[in-house]
């Protein structure tokens, strides 16, 4: 319920950036238990995550717990054996191993999880998020 409310806030808020940050914290924070969570990120996502306390940006993708990739999917090569979380629909489609994605479409937050990716890296979702798992 808290999660839904957060989504709702995201939808209606003009200050979407802060809520994007919160959403990353909620989603990734509930999947990765270690603190801080070492992330490899680029672009907008990097700027957003830098403001968060639970994330720590790393320069080398191999040292990260999770890689957050946007449309620059060429970076996928650098992130072999690292769970990938996509920030656009395109990258989510392109990177078949990505375990999930979060992006905005028509002002609505779009959240996706893929069984394949989750299994590959032994990631488990909290109950709240399970309804976002894509059908095969």
């Amino acid at each position: 319920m808290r999660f839904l409310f957060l989504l709702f806030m995201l939808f209606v808020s003009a200050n979407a950036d802060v809520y994007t940050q919160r959403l990353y914290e909620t989603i990734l924070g509930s999947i990765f238990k270690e603190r801080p969570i070492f992330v490899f990120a680029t672009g907008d996502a990097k700027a957003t995550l830098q403001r968060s306390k639970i994330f720590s940006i790393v320069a080398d993708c191999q040292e990260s717990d999770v890689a957050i990739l946007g449309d620059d999917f060429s970076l996928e090569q650098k992130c072999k054996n690292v769970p990938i979380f996509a920030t656009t629909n395109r990258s989510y489609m392109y990177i078949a191993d990505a375990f999930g994605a979060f992006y905005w479409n028509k002002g609505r937050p779009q959240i996706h999880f893929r069984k394949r990716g989750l299994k590959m890296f032994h990631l488990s979702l909290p109950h709240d998020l399970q309804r976002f798992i894509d059908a095969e």
Partner: protein
Amino acid sequence: MQNNFFLKKSFYIFYVTVIVLILSAVYIFKTFDKTSSDIEQLTLKSNIEYINNIASNVSSLINKKTDMNLVQSLKKSRALRNRLQEDLEMFQTKRYRYVYVVQKIPNTIKFRFLLDGAKKDKSGFLESFQPFNTQQWLDTYTTKSARYFSHKEIKSLWLTYLKPIVQHNKVVGIIAIDFSLNEYNYMHNTLNDLSFSVKIFMSLLLFIFIVVLIFATIDKKRVYLLKKQAQEIQDFNITLQNKVDEEVAKNREKDKQILEQSRLAQMGEMIGMIAHQWRQPINAISATSIAINMRAQMETLDQKSAIELADKIGELTQHLSKTIDDFRNFFKETKEKQDMTYGDLIQSTLDIVGVSVKNKNITIDTDIQSDIVFHTYVNELKQVLLNLIKNAEDVLEEKKIENAFIKIKAVENRLIVRDNGGGVPEDIIEKIFDPYFSTKTLNGTGLGLYMSKTIVETHCGGTIRVTNDTEGAVFCVVLPSNK
């Protein structure tokens, strides 16, 4: 009582006015709220109607171009998709932010795009879509009817309008339009602000009115109190005046009594004076009767001398009778003013008292340099002069002064009586006009000068005062000459 009633009435009016004002304020607020919500509803309604038109146009456009099977046609022809998307783009403006068509993925509760009118970041064909308020979207499928919703909990900036595309009596997709509520919100906020201002203004007005009324009431109370005080002072003044009048009346009564007393005292003195006046004529009568007696014995009483002697006795008797009359007149109370000069006054007084004074070896000098005619209480003034003469006589007799004299002088409106009795001692000179003040152990009443002062000053409107000169006391009476 009247004032009290007025106060109560004004309080009554005050309360009624306040209640009426509050009621009308409430009415105005209600009307305003209703009107503003009517305006909002109307605006929303016209907006919805407009969107409805757009959606209908989009719907008929799609129906016209897709040979009765939307999804199949779109799947087959990329060109058709592009053409339709271009059409949708035309409807998309700043206000109609997103215009797109989605389809429920069969056998799930998830959605995917069929067409997207977005100009950039266009969603792909069959790309998944997670709407918000999913239930509303699902309901559009089941009810086959258009709907719109915003987010009631929080003032939403967006309103989503959903219209089902029906083919073969089946919903094959939903036309979704995200509509900006910015203008609507702006209006809503403006109306709210206005309503707030109106409320503040009305409250302020009410407040001011109440304050003014309260002050007016307080002021009225104050004025009432002032009036009451003024009334009390007036009442007090009246009672004071009454008291003063009472006292004055009492004083008059006392004066009357004192005058009575002094008159009685003077009566006593008069008897002495009459005795003096009568001594000489009675002696003469006695001598005449002896003469008659002797002539009769010597038989020398002829008719002529008998008549002469009888006439003499008659004359003397006449004189006695006249003296009595004079005294009677002197002490008769005349209520009316009469004309007199100081000469008349002095003459008639000396007629009464002259003999008795002269018998005591006191010279009486008169010097009249006044012919003013006073219209005044003559008899009372005679008593004053009599008093002054008697007092002088008393002091001269007591001190056994040699060459004693009393000088009576009238100059214009002044009457001066002086003696050579040594004057009034300085330590009592202030008190000699007080009632019952006397230095005489025998026969002193202390009323003579008090009575004289009363007559001169109160009755006749003049003044009387005393000074001492080198020889004795000087009493000066001044009468108002123009009366």
